[in-house]
Protein backbone atom coordinates (compact mmCIF):
# COMPACT_ATOMS: atom_id res chain seq x y z
CA UNK A 1 0.00 0.00 0.00
CA UNK A 2 2.70 2.45 1.04
CA UNK A 3 4.84 1.33 -1.88
CA UNK A 4 1.99 1.74 -4.27
CA UNK A 5 1.43 5.25 -3.10
CA UNK A 6 5.06 6.29 -3.28
CA UNK A 7 5.31 4.93 -6.82
CA UNK A 8 2.25 6.91 -7.75
CA UNK A 9 3.79 10.01 -6.19
CA UNK A 10 7.03 9.47 -8.09
CA UNK A 11 5.08 9.18 -11.33
CA UNK A 12 3.34 12.47 -10.65
CA UNK A 13 6.69 14.19 -10.03
CA UNK A 14 8.14 12.61 -13.16
CA UNK A 15 5.23 13.73 -15.30
CA UNK A 16 5.70 17.34 -14.21
CA UNK A 17 9.46 17.20 -14.55
CA UNK A 18 9.73 15.35 -17.83
CA UNK A 19 8.79 18.09 -20.35
CA UNK A 20 11.59 20.40 -19.21
CA UNK A 21 14.02 17.64 -18.29
CA UNK A 22 14.01 15.99 -21.71
CA UNK A 23 14.96 19.29 -23.37
CA UNK A 24 17.51 20.06 -20.69
CA UNK A 25 19.13 16.63 -20.84
CA UNK A 26 19.14 15.98 -24.59
CA UNK A 27 19.88 19.48 -25.87
CA UNK A 28 21.89 21.10 -23.06
CA UNK A 29 23.50 18.74 -20.54
CA UNK A 30 24.44 16.01 -23.01
CA UNK A 31 25.90 18.56 -25.47
CA UNK A 32 27.95 20.25 -22.71
CA UNK A 33 29.56 16.93 -21.79
CA UNK A 34 29.95 15.90 -25.43
CA UNK A 35 31.61 19.18 -26.38
CA UNK A 36 34.39 18.37 -23.95
CA UNK A 37 34.55 14.79 -25.22
CA UNK A 38 34.62 15.80 -28.88
CA UNK A 39 37.44 18.24 -28.23
CA UNK A 40 39.80 15.26 -27.79
CA UNK A 41 38.88 13.77 -31.17
CA UNK A 42 39.44 14.59 -34.82
CA UNK A 43 35.73 14.38 -35.58
CA UNK A 44 34.85 16.03 -38.87
CA UNK A 45 31.20 15.16 -39.35
CA UNK A 46 31.71 11.72 -40.89
CA UNK A 47 31.25 8.23 -39.50
CA UNK A 48 34.75 7.58 -38.23
CA UNK A 49 36.89 9.53 -35.87
CA UNK A 50 39.52 8.77 -33.28
CA UNK A 51 40.90 10.11 -30.05
CA UNK A 52 43.83 12.42 -30.58
CA UNK A 53 44.47 13.56 -27.03
CA UNK A 54 45.10 17.24 -26.57
CA UNK A 55 46.26 17.79 -30.16
CA UNK A 56 43.34 20.17 -30.88
CA UNK A 57 44.27 22.34 -27.93
CA UNK A 58 47.91 22.35 -28.95
CA UNK A 59 47.14 23.44 -32.49
CA UNK A 60 44.59 25.99 -31.26
CA UNK A 61 47.07 27.70 -28.99
CA UNK A 62 49.61 27.70 -31.81
CA UNK A 63 47.11 29.11 -34.30
CA UNK A 64 47.17 32.85 -34.89
CA UNK A 65 43.52 32.71 -35.96
CA UNK A 66 42.44 31.32 -32.59
CA UNK A 67 44.70 33.56 -30.53
CA UNK A 68 43.61 36.65 -32.41
CA UNK A 69 39.93 35.68 -31.98
CA UNK A 70 40.54 35.47 -28.23
CA UNK A 71 42.15 38.91 -28.26
CA UNK A 72 39.33 40.40 -30.34
CA UNK A 73 36.72 38.83 -28.06
CA UNK A 74 38.50 40.20 -24.99
CA UNK A 75 38.51 43.70 -26.43
CA UNK A 76 34.89 43.43 -27.51
CA UNK A 77 33.80 42.24 -24.04
CA UNK A 78 35.77 44.84 -22.10
CA UNK A 79 34.72 47.86 -24.17
CA UNK A 80 31.12 46.88 -24.87
CA UNK A 81 30.46 45.95 -21.23
CA UNK A 82 32.09 49.11 -19.95
CA UNK A 83 30.20 51.51 -22.22
CA UNK A 84 26.89 49.66 -21.93
CA UNK A 85 26.96 49.77 -18.15
CA UNK A 86 28.38 53.28 -17.85
CA UNK A 87 25.64 54.70 -20.07
CA UNK A 88 23.02 52.52 -18.38
CA UNK A 89 24.07 53.85 -14.99
CA UNK A 90 24.13 57.51 -16.03
CA UNK A 91 20.72 57.36 -17.70
CA UNK A 92 19.22 55.38 -14.82
CA UNK A 93 20.35 58.09 -12.40
CA UNK A 94 18.91 60.80 -14.65
CA UNK A 95 15.60 59.01 -15.15
CA UNK A 96 15.15 58.04 -11.53
CA UNK A 97 14.33 61.58 -10.45
CA UNK A 98 11.37 63.74 -11.33
CA UNK A 99 11.83 64.22 -15.05
CA UNK A 100 9.40 65.30 -17.70
CA UNK A 101 8.31 62.41 -19.99
CA UNK A 102 10.24 59.98 -17.83
CA UNK A 103 8.30 56.90 -18.96
CA UNK A 104 8.74 57.89 -22.58
CA UNK A 105 12.53 58.16 -22.31
CA UNK A 106 12.79 54.91 -20.39
CA UNK A 107 10.70 53.03 -22.94
CA UNK A 108 12.57 54.54 -25.86
CA UNK A 109 16.05 53.69 -24.56
CA UNK A 110 14.91 50.17 -23.71
CA UNK A 111 13.33 49.56 -27.11
CA UNK A 112 16.46 48.66 -29.17
CA UNK A 113 17.31 45.82 -26.80
CA UNK A 114 14.25 43.85 -27.88
CA UNK A 115 14.71 44.31 -31.62
CA UNK A 116 16.32 41.84 -34.00
CA UNK A 117 20.12 42.16 -34.20
CA UNK A 118 19.85 41.23 -37.86
CA UNK A 119 17.50 44.14 -38.58
CA UNK A 120 19.67 46.47 -36.50
CA UNK A 121 22.79 45.30 -38.31
CA UNK A 122 21.19 46.02 -41.69
CA UNK A 123 20.04 49.42 -40.48
CA UNK A 124 23.52 50.42 -39.31
CA UNK A 125 25.12 49.15 -42.49
CA UNK A 126 23.08 51.87 -44.19
CA UNK A 127 23.37 54.54 -41.49
CA UNK A 128 27.14 54.03 -41.29
CA UNK A 129 27.69 53.61 -45.01
CA UNK A 130 31.26 54.87 -45.54
CA UNK A 131 30.31 56.67 -48.74
CA UNK A 132 27.26 58.84 -48.34
CA UNK A 133 25.67 57.33 -45.24
CA UNK A 134 23.65 59.74 -43.08
CA UNK A 135 26.18 59.73 -40.23
CA UNK A 136 29.13 60.53 -42.46
CA UNK A 137 27.13 63.26 -44.22
CA UNK A 138 26.31 64.71 -40.82
CA UNK A 139 29.96 64.57 -39.76
CA UNK A 140 31.02 66.30 -42.98
CA UNK A 141 28.44 69.04 -42.60
CA UNK A 142 29.88 69.65 -39.13
CA UNK A 143 33.30 70.02 -40.70
CA UNK A 144 34.57 66.62 -39.52
CA UNK A 145 35.98 63.81 -41.60
CA UNK A 146 33.77 60.87 -42.56
CA UNK A 147 34.76 57.55 -41.01
CA UNK A 148 35.39 54.26 -42.83
CA UNK A 149 33.36 52.43 -40.12
CA UNK A 150 33.05 48.75 -41.02
CA UNK A 151 35.42 48.92 -43.96
CA UNK A 152 38.69 49.53 -42.12
CA UNK A 153 40.55 47.14 -39.84
CA UNK A 154 41.10 50.08 -37.50
CA UNK A 155 37.46 50.97 -36.98
CA UNK A 156 35.41 47.83 -37.73
CA UNK A 157 35.48 46.29 -34.24
CA UNK A 158 34.82 49.67 -32.66
CA UNK A 159 31.82 50.10 -34.93
CA UNK A 160 30.33 46.78 -33.83
CA UNK A 161 31.00 47.69 -30.20
CA UNK A 162 29.22 50.98 -30.82
CA UNK A 163 26.17 49.23 -32.27
CA UNK A 164 26.07 46.74 -29.40
CA UNK A 165 26.16 49.63 -26.91
CA UNK A 166 23.39 51.40 -28.82
CA UNK A 167 21.35 48.21 -28.72
CA UNK A 168 21.87 47.12 -25.10
CA UNK A 169 22.45 50.04 -22.74
CA UNK A 170 18.71 50.51 -22.22
CA UNK A 171 18.36 46.94 -21.01
CA UNK A 172 20.84 47.49 -18.20
CA UNK A 173 19.34 50.90 -17.51
CA UNK A 174 16.06 49.17 -16.65
CA UNK A 175 17.94 46.89 -14.24
CA UNK A 176 19.71 49.85 -12.62
CA UNK A 177 16.40 51.69 -12.30
CA UNK A 178 14.92 48.73 -10.45
CA UNK A 179 17.98 48.70 -8.21
CA UNK A 180 17.64 52.42 -7.51
CA UNK A 181 14.00 51.99 -6.60
CA UNK A 182 14.87 49.36 -4.03
CA UNK A 183 17.13 51.75 -2.10
CA UNK A 184 15.47 52.82 1.14
CA UNK A 185 14.65 56.56 0.89
CA UNK A 186 15.37 57.02 4.61
CA UNK A 187 19.06 56.59 3.82
CA UNK A 188 18.92 59.73 1.71
CA UNK A 189 16.84 61.53 4.31
CA UNK A 190 19.36 60.95 7.06
CA UNK A 191 22.15 61.95 4.66
CA UNK A 192 20.25 65.17 4.01
CA UNK A 193 20.10 65.80 7.73
CA UNK A 194 23.86 65.34 7.87
CA UNK A 195 24.14 67.94 5.12
CA UNK A 196 25.51 65.58 2.46
CA UNK A 197 25.60 66.96 -1.09
CA UNK A 198 24.38 65.23 -4.25
CA UNK A 199 27.79 63.89 -5.15
CA UNK A 200 28.44 62.66 -1.63
CA UNK A 201 25.11 60.79 -1.61
CA UNK A 202 25.93 59.22 -4.96
CA UNK A 203 29.29 57.97 -3.69
CA UNK A 204 28.25 56.90 -0.20
CA UNK A 205 24.72 55.60 -0.72
CA UNK A 206 23.72 55.05 -4.34
CA UNK A 207 26.82 53.28 -5.62
CA UNK A 208 27.32 50.97 -2.61
CA UNK A 209 23.62 50.08 -2.49
CA UNK A 210 23.63 49.32 -6.21
CA UNK A 211 26.46 46.79 -6.05
CA UNK A 212 24.20 43.71 -6.23
CA UNK A 213 22.59 45.15 -9.37
CA UNK A 214 25.98 46.09 -10.79
CA UNK A 215 27.25 42.59 -10.10
CA UNK A 216 24.31 41.06 -11.93
CA UNK A 217 24.64 43.48 -14.86
CA UNK A 218 28.37 42.83 -15.24
CA UNK A 219 27.86 39.07 -15.21
CA UNK A 220 25.03 39.19 -17.74
CA UNK A 221 26.79 41.66 -20.02
CA UNK A 222 30.05 39.68 -19.98
CA UNK A 223 28.26 36.43 -20.85
CA UNK A 224 26.36 38.17 -23.65
CA UNK A 225 29.56 39.87 -24.83
CA UNK A 226 31.28 36.51 -25.28
CA UNK A 227 28.35 35.39 -27.42
CA UNK A 228 28.23 38.24 -29.91
CA UNK A 229 27.57 36.66 -33.30
CA UNK A 230 24.57 38.09 -35.16
CA UNK A 231 25.99 41.61 -35.46
CA UNK A 232 29.36 40.34 -36.67
CA UNK A 233 27.68 38.04 -39.18
CA UNK A 234 25.29 40.59 -40.64
CA UNK A 235 27.59 43.63 -40.59
CA UNK A 236 30.76 42.09 -41.98
CA UNK A 237 29.52 39.94 -44.83
CA UNK A 238 27.84 36.76 -43.56
CA UNK A 239 29.69 33.46 -43.70
CA UNK A 240 32.66 35.13 -45.34
CA UNK A 241 32.53 37.87 -42.73
CA UNK A 242 34.55 38.55 -39.61
CA UNK A 243 36.56 41.11 -41.48
CA UNK A 244 37.98 43.27 -42.80
CA UNK A 245 41.08 41.09 -42.62
CA UNK A 246 39.77 39.08 -39.67
CA UNK A 247 39.61 42.16 -37.47
CA UNK A 248 36.10 41.32 -36.17
CA UNK A 249 36.41 37.52 -36.01
CA UNK A 250 35.35 36.91 -32.43
CA UNK A 251 35.72 33.48 -30.83
CA UNK A 252 32.16 32.26 -31.51
CA UNK A 253 32.49 33.31 -35.14
CA UNK A 254 35.68 31.29 -35.45
CA UNK A 255 33.93 28.31 -33.81
CA UNK A 256 31.04 28.61 -36.24
CA UNK A 257 33.28 28.75 -39.28
CA UNK A 258 35.54 25.89 -38.20
CA UNK A 259 32.61 23.66 -37.25
CA UNK A 260 30.09 24.36 -39.98
CA UNK A 261 32.13 25.57 -42.94
CA UNK A 262 35.41 23.68 -42.59
CA UNK A 263 33.84 20.78 -40.64
CA UNK A 264 36.75 20.73 -38.20
CA UNK A 265 34.31 19.76 -35.48
CA UNK A 266 36.81 18.27 -33.07
CA UNK A 267 38.98 21.35 -33.29
CA UNK A 268 35.98 23.70 -32.97
CA UNK A 269 34.86 21.70 -29.91
CA UNK A 270 38.22 22.42 -28.32
CA UNK A 271 37.62 26.12 -29.00
CA UNK A 272 34.10 25.79 -27.56
CA UNK A 273 35.51 24.11 -24.45
CA UNK A 274 37.89 27.04 -24.04
CA UNK A 275 34.87 29.35 -24.28
CA UNK A 276 33.04 27.34 -21.60
CA UNK A 277 36.09 27.41 -19.34
CA UNK A 278 36.57 31.13 -19.87
CA UNK A 279 32.99 31.84 -18.87
CA UNK A 280 33.31 29.53 -15.87
CA UNK A 281 36.47 31.33 -14.75
CA UNK A 282 35.01 34.80 -15.34
CA UNK A 283 31.76 34.07 -13.49
CA UNK A 284 33.61 32.35 -10.63
CA UNK A 285 35.96 35.31 -10.23
CA UNK A 286 33.02 37.70 -10.28
CA UNK A 287 31.11 35.54 -7.83
CA UNK A 288 34.08 35.30 -5.46
CA UNK A 289 35.00 38.95 -5.67
CA UNK A 290 31.42 40.10 -5.09
CA UNK A 291 31.97 39.15 -1.45
CA UNK A 292 34.53 41.91 -1.38
CA UNK A 293 32.59 44.67 -3.10
CA UNK A 294 28.92 43.74 -3.18
CA UNK A 295 26.93 44.84 -0.20
CA UNK A 296 23.73 42.89 0.29
CA UNK A 297 22.84 44.83 3.43
CA UNK A 298 19.11 45.08 3.30
CA UNK A 299 18.03 48.67 3.40
Amino acid at each position, binding site marked *: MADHRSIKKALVVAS*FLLPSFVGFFVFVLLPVVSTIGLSFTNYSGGRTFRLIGIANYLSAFRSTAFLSSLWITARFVVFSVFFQLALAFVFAI*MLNGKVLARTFFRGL*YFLPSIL*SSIAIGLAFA*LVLNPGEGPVNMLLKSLGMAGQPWLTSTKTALGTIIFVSV*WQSFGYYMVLFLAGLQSINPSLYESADLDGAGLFRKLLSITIPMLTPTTFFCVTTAVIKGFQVFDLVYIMTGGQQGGGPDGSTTVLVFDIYRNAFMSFRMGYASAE*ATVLLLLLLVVTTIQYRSQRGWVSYDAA
Partner: protein
Amino acid sequence: MYVILLLAAVAVIGPLLVVASSSFKRQDEIFSYPMTIIPRIPVLSNFAQLSAHFPLYIWNSIKVTTSIVVLQFVTATTGAYAFSKLVWRFRDTLFILYIASIMVPIQSIIIPQFIIVRNLGLYNTHTAVVLVSAFTAFGVFLCRQYFLTIPDSLLEAARIDGASEYRIFSQIVLPLSIPVIVTVIIFSFRYFWNDFFTALIYLTSVSLKTLPLGMADFVSQYNIEYGPQMAAALISIIPVLIVFLVGQRYFVEGVVASGIKG
Protein backbone atom coordinates in the same frame (compact mmCIF):
# COMPACT_ATOMS: atom_id res chain seq x y z
CA MET B 1 20.06 67.36 -18.49
CA TYR B 2 17.19 67.51 -20.96
CA VAL B 3 19.71 68.25 -23.68
CA ILE B 4 21.46 64.96 -22.95
CA LEU B 5 18.19 63.04 -22.74
CA LEU B 6 16.97 64.47 -26.03
CA LEU B 7 20.29 63.90 -27.82
CA ALA B 8 20.26 60.28 -26.67
CA ALA B 9 16.64 59.96 -27.77
CA VAL B 10 17.58 61.21 -31.24
CA ALA B 11 20.53 58.80 -31.35
CA VAL B 12 18.25 55.90 -30.44
CA ILE B 13 15.36 56.79 -32.68
CA GLY B 14 17.42 58.05 -35.65
CA PRO B 15 18.47 54.68 -37.05
CA LEU B 16 14.93 53.35 -36.55
CA LEU B 17 13.51 56.32 -38.46
CA VAL B 18 16.01 55.70 -41.23
CA VAL B 19 14.72 52.12 -41.49
CA ALA B 20 11.11 53.22 -41.56
CA SER B 21 11.50 56.06 -44.04
CA SER B 22 14.02 54.33 -46.34
CA SER B 23 11.55 51.47 -46.72
CA PHE B 24 9.37 53.85 -48.71
CA LYS B 25 12.13 55.68 -50.62
CA ARG B 26 13.68 55.17 -54.00
CA GLN B 27 17.36 54.20 -53.93
CA ASP B 28 18.51 57.69 -55.04
CA GLU B 29 16.53 59.40 -52.30
CA ILE B 30 17.90 57.13 -49.55
CA PHE B 31 21.29 58.82 -49.89
CA SER B 32 20.01 62.29 -50.62
CA TYR B 33 21.30 65.05 -48.35
CA PRO B 34 19.93 66.65 -46.26
CA MET B 35 18.00 63.56 -45.29
CA THR B 36 14.27 63.52 -45.56
CA ILE B 37 12.19 61.82 -42.92
CA ILE B 38 9.01 61.76 -44.98
CA PRO B 39 9.96 60.48 -48.44
CA ARG B 40 9.51 63.11 -51.17
CA ILE B 41 8.30 60.43 -53.52
CA PRO B 42 6.88 57.62 -51.37
CA VAL B 43 7.03 54.24 -53.09
CA LEU B 44 5.99 50.71 -52.20
CA SER B 45 8.34 49.16 -54.73
CA ASN B 46 10.83 48.12 -52.04
CA PHE B 47 8.28 45.75 -50.56
CA ALA B 48 7.36 44.44 -54.00
CA GLN B 49 11.03 43.95 -54.79
CA LEU B 50 11.65 41.65 -51.82
CA SER B 51 12.31 38.13 -52.97
CA ALA B 52 9.13 36.19 -53.69
CA HIS B 53 10.00 33.98 -50.72
CA PHE B 54 9.43 36.67 -48.13
CA PRO B 55 5.77 35.91 -47.40
CA LEU B 56 6.88 32.33 -46.80
CA TYR B 57 9.71 33.47 -44.49
CA ILE B 58 7.18 35.47 -42.49
CA TRP B 59 4.87 32.48 -42.28
CA ASN B 60 7.77 30.21 -41.24
CA SER B 61 8.74 32.68 -38.53
CA ILE B 62 5.17 32.79 -37.23
CA LYS B 63 4.93 29.00 -37.25
CA VAL B 64 8.28 28.33 -35.56
CA THR B 65 7.94 31.11 -32.99
CA THR B 66 4.41 30.10 -32.02
CA SER B 67 5.41 26.45 -31.60
CA ILE B 68 8.37 27.39 -29.41
CA VAL B 69 6.31 29.77 -27.29
CA VAL B 70 3.66 27.10 -26.67
CA LEU B 71 6.27 24.46 -25.82
CA GLN B 72 8.18 26.84 -23.54
CA PHE B 73 4.95 27.66 -21.74
CA VAL B 74 4.43 23.95 -21.08
CA THR B 75 8.02 23.15 -20.04
CA ALA B 76 8.40 26.28 -17.91
CA THR B 77 5.16 25.92 -15.96
CA THR B 78 5.28 22.14 -15.40
CA GLY B 79 8.96 22.33 -14.48
CA ALA B 80 8.36 25.22 -12.12
CA TYR B 81 5.52 23.29 -10.46
CA ALA B 82 7.81 20.31 -9.85
CA PHE B 83 10.47 22.60 -8.38
CA SER B 84 8.17 24.62 -6.15
CA LYS B 85 5.12 22.60 -5.16
CA LEU B 86 6.26 18.99 -5.16
CA VAL B 87 8.78 17.43 -2.79
CA TRP B 88 11.31 14.95 -4.11
CA ARG B 89 14.95 13.92 -3.78
CA PHE B 90 17.64 15.83 -5.68
CA ARG B 91 15.15 18.62 -6.34
CA ASP B 92 17.46 21.44 -5.31
CA THR B 93 20.51 19.87 -6.98
CA LEU B 94 18.72 19.60 -10.30
CA PHE B 95 17.41 23.13 -9.93
CA ILE B 96 20.96 24.43 -9.52
CA LEU B 97 21.94 22.57 -12.70
CA TYR B 98 19.02 24.18 -14.55
CA ILE B 99 20.10 27.63 -13.35
CA ALA B 100 23.74 27.00 -14.22
CA SER B 101 22.67 26.19 -17.78
CA ILE B 102 21.54 29.81 -18.22
CA MET B 103 25.23 30.70 -18.33
CA VAL B 104 26.06 28.18 -21.07
CA PRO B 105 26.16 29.95 -24.44
CA ILE B 106 24.40 28.10 -27.23
CA GLN B 107 27.48 28.46 -29.44
CA SER B 108 29.58 26.41 -27.04
CA ILE B 109 27.30 23.36 -27.24
CA ILE B 110 26.07 23.72 -30.79
CA ILE B 111 28.36 21.05 -32.30
CA PRO B 112 27.14 18.01 -30.29
CA GLN B 113 23.61 19.42 -30.35
CA PHE B 114 23.85 19.51 -34.13
CA ILE B 115 25.09 15.89 -34.19
CA ILE B 116 22.21 14.81 -31.95
CA VAL B 117 19.68 16.60 -34.15
CA ARG B 118 21.15 15.02 -37.27
CA ASN B 119 21.07 11.54 -35.70
CA LEU B 120 17.43 12.06 -34.80
CA GLY B 121 16.85 12.68 -38.50
CA LEU B 122 15.68 16.23 -37.83
CA TYR B 123 18.36 18.24 -39.64
CA ASN B 124 16.86 20.88 -41.91
CA THR B 125 13.39 20.73 -40.32
CA HIS B 126 11.42 23.24 -38.31
CA THR B 127 11.01 20.52 -35.68
CA ALA B 128 14.75 20.74 -34.98
CA VAL B 129 14.63 24.46 -34.26
CA VAL B 130 11.52 24.04 -32.13
CA LEU B 131 12.77 21.09 -30.08
CA VAL B 132 16.22 22.46 -29.26
CA SER B 133 14.54 25.68 -28.09
CA ALA B 134 11.78 24.06 -26.04
CA PHE B 135 13.62 24.03 -22.73
CA THR B 136 13.93 27.35 -20.96
CA ALA B 137 15.86 27.48 -17.72
CA PHE B 138 14.97 31.15 -17.44
CA GLY B 139 11.26 30.38 -17.81
CA VAL B 140 11.37 27.61 -15.20
CA PHE B 141 13.21 29.98 -12.85
CA LEU B 142 10.80 32.86 -13.39
CA CYS B 143 7.68 30.71 -12.92
CA ARG B 144 9.13 28.93 -9.90
CA GLN B 145 9.81 32.23 -8.13
CA TYR B 146 6.21 33.21 -8.79
CA PHE B 147 4.70 29.86 -7.77
CA LEU B 148 6.59 30.07 -4.47
CA THR B 149 4.46 33.09 -3.57
CA ILE B 150 1.26 31.03 -3.87
CA PRO B 151 0.52 29.74 -0.34
CA ASP B 152 0.88 25.98 0.09
CA SER B 153 -2.15 25.99 2.39
CA LEU B 154 -4.30 26.69 -0.67
CA LEU B 155 -2.92 23.61 -2.38
CA GLU B 156 -3.20 21.49 0.76
CA ALA B 157 -6.88 22.33 1.07
CA ALA B 158 -7.44 21.17 -2.48
CA ARG B 159 -5.43 17.99 -1.88
CA ILE B 160 -7.58 17.17 1.17
CA ASP B 161 -10.64 17.63 -1.02
CA GLY B 162 -9.14 14.94 -3.24
CA ALA B 163 -7.94 17.07 -6.12
CA SER B 164 -5.09 15.57 -8.15
CA GLU B 165 -1.83 17.47 -8.69
CA TYR B 166 -2.75 17.97 -12.34
CA ARG B 167 -6.01 19.55 -11.32
CA ILE B 168 -4.34 21.78 -8.73
CA PHE B 169 -1.76 22.79 -11.32
CA SER B 170 -4.21 23.62 -14.07
CA GLN B 171 -7.11 25.01 -12.05
CA ILE B 172 -5.43 26.76 -9.12
CA VAL B 173 -1.79 27.53 -9.83
CA LEU B 174 -1.97 28.47 -13.52
CA PRO B 175 -4.94 30.85 -13.21
CA LEU B 176 -3.19 32.61 -10.31
CA SER B 177 -0.01 33.00 -12.35
CA ILE B 178 -1.24 34.81 -15.44
CA PRO B 179 1.18 37.77 -15.04
CA VAL B 180 4.31 35.61 -14.94
CA ILE B 181 3.00 33.44 -17.75
CA VAL B 182 2.45 36.52 -19.91
CA THR B 183 5.99 37.65 -19.08
CA VAL B 184 7.46 34.28 -20.08
CA ILE B 185 5.43 34.19 -23.28
CA ILE B 186 6.40 37.73 -24.29
CA PHE B 187 10.06 37.05 -23.53
CA SER B 188 10.14 33.88 -25.50
CA PHE B 189 8.21 35.41 -28.41
CA ARG B 190 10.66 38.30 -28.58
CA TYR B 191 13.70 36.05 -28.36
CA PHE B 192 12.66 33.48 -30.93
CA TRP B 193 11.08 35.90 -33.39
CA ASN B 194 14.56 37.44 -33.58
CA ASP B 195 16.55 34.22 -33.23
CA PHE B 196 19.11 33.87 -35.97
CA PHE B 197 21.80 31.47 -34.79
CA THR B 198 19.70 28.33 -34.27
CA ALA B 199 17.92 28.83 -37.58
CA LEU B 200 21.26 29.39 -39.34
CA ILE B 201 22.61 26.07 -38.06
CA TYR B 202 19.54 23.89 -38.60
CA LEU B 203 17.74 25.28 -41.66
CA THR B 204 19.22 25.12 -45.14
CA SER B 205 16.24 24.84 -47.51
CA VAL B 206 15.01 28.15 -48.84
CA SER B 207 11.43 27.03 -48.23
CA LEU B 208 12.13 26.59 -44.50
CA LYS B 209 13.92 29.86 -43.79
CA THR B 210 12.70 32.17 -41.08
CA LEU B 211 12.61 35.95 -41.45
CA PRO B 212 16.03 36.72 -39.84
CA LEU B 213 17.61 34.01 -41.97
CA GLY B 214 15.97 35.41 -45.10
CA MET B 215 17.19 38.91 -44.22
CA ALA B 216 20.73 37.64 -43.77
CA ASP B 217 20.76 36.61 -47.45
CA PHE B 218 21.10 40.29 -48.30
CA VAL B 219 24.71 40.35 -47.14
CA SER B 220 25.85 37.86 -49.76
CA GLN B 221 24.29 39.79 -52.64
CA TYR B 222 26.65 41.86 -54.74
CA ASN B 223 24.27 44.53 -55.87
CA ILE B 224 23.24 46.20 -52.63
CA GLU B 225 19.76 47.64 -52.76
CA TYR B 226 19.10 49.33 -49.47
CA GLY B 227 15.39 49.94 -50.00
CA PRO B 228 14.28 46.28 -49.89
CA GLN B 229 16.67 45.62 -46.99
CA MET B 230 15.06 48.34 -44.92
CA ALA B 231 11.60 47.13 -45.94
CA ALA B 232 12.47 43.65 -44.65
CA ALA B 233 13.96 45.05 -41.46
CA LEU B 234 10.80 47.09 -40.91
CA ILE B 235 8.61 44.01 -41.38
CA SER B 236 10.67 42.09 -38.81
CA ILE B 237 10.58 44.93 -36.29
CA ILE B 238 6.87 45.72 -36.41
CA PRO B 239 5.44 42.67 -34.55
CA VAL B 240 7.88 43.12 -31.66
CA LEU B 241 7.17 46.84 -31.63
CA ILE B 242 3.43 46.23 -31.36
CA VAL B 243 3.85 43.73 -28.53
CA PHE B 244 6.17 46.21 -26.83
CA LEU B 245 3.70 49.08 -27.08
CA VAL B 246 0.89 46.93 -25.71
CA GLY B 247 2.81 45.05 -23.03
CA GLN B 248 5.83 47.16 -22.11
CA ARG B 249 5.13 46.44 -18.45
CA TYR B 250 5.72 42.73 -18.97
CA PHE B 251 9.00 43.29 -20.77
CA VAL B 252 10.27 45.43 -17.96
CA GLU B 253 9.00 43.04 -15.30
CA GLY B 254 10.79 40.15 -16.98
CA VAL B 255 14.06 42.05 -17.13
CA VAL B 256 13.75 43.10 -13.51
CA ALA B 257 12.72 39.64 -12.29
CA SER B 258 15.79 38.16 -13.95
CA GLY B 259 17.95 40.46 -11.87
CA ILE B 260 16.55 39.80 -8.43
CA LYS B 261 19.43 38.64 -6.28
CA GLY B 262 21.38 37.42 -9.30
